[in-house]
């Protein structure tokens, strides 16, 4: 269990992260709604991109953490890695859901349709289904190493969909635009400087939010484990 000094130190670090995340989000909102120029062909609706891409980045990053932590769990059999994977999968699903919501809202005025069964959209939907299944598997089965092992395998297999999502617009004819941030000419070459700066701030804000949420969820899961352990001890000793 953590000492009171460690708890106080953790709380102070969390407070700094909360303020920093809040400030960067404020800067993001100012950049999106005041600073960034309106795109010529799509108009004001193109500003959805500054939410849509960071949500996608956050969910892919979260699933990458699930992938790494699941491998580490299967290798080291340490419950801590399972906690990290679980917390990250939950955050990933939330932001992947937001990608699947903001995408159609952006698509409707531009493509004239909420949804098309395009390779990128379909593979993103599959990714969402895989990680919702991951959370359902964890929720429906009994706690223990078997649950963690099955979840870890699903967490690793699910991540293999992400390279497919990235390259889908290059490999197949797609409605979804080609990558604008990571292009064959270099990072950010396909965008105007103001737009790239706004996207950069937004990506920073969402990344900070990820670390903030991860910290809270991991502490929560650790506390839950500690309470369960004490409950078992009380039960057996009485």
């Amino acid at each position: 269990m953590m000492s009171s000094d460690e708890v106080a130190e953790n709380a102070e670090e969390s407070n700094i992260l909360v303020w920093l995340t809040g400030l960067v989000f404020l800067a993001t909102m100012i950049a999106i709604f005041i600073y960034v120029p309106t795109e010529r062909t799509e108009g004001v609706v193109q500003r959805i991109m500054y939410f849509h891409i960071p949500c996608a980045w956050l969910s892919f990053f979260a699933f990458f953490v699930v992938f790494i932590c699941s491998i580490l769990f299967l290798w080291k059999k340490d419950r801590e890695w399972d906690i990290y994977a679980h917390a990250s999968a939950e955050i990933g699903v939330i932001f992947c859901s937001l990608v699947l919501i903001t995408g159609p809202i952006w698509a409707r005025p531009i493509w004239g349709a909420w949804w098309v069964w395009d390779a990128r959209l379909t593979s993103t939907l599959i990714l969402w289904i895989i990680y919702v299944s991951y959370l359902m598997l964890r929720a429906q089965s009994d706690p223990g190493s078997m649950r963690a092992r099955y979840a870890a395998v699903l967490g690793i297999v699910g991540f293999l969909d992400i390279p497919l999502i990235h390259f889908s617009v290059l490999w197949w004819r797609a409605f979804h635009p080609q990558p604008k941030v990571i292009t064959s000419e270099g990072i950010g070459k396909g965008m105007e400087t103001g737009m790239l700066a706004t996207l950069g701030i937004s990506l920073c804000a969402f990344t900070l939010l990820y670390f903030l949420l991860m910290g809270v969820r991991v502490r929560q899961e650790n506390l839950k484990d500690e309470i369960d352990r004490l409950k078992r001890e009380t039960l057996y000793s009485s």
Partner: protein
Amino acid sequence: MDNLGFLFAANAFVWGGIIYYVYTIKQRNRALEKDLELLKETLSKEGR
């Protein structure tokens, strides 16, 4: 301006989603605090 409603909707969904998730975390925290209090009570009743 055209399509302002779509921008507003996307913005609202993103903030709504984040706020809802933070709310569920708070709820889980509250449940854990209750569990902890109950555990403390049980232990003090048993004189430990």
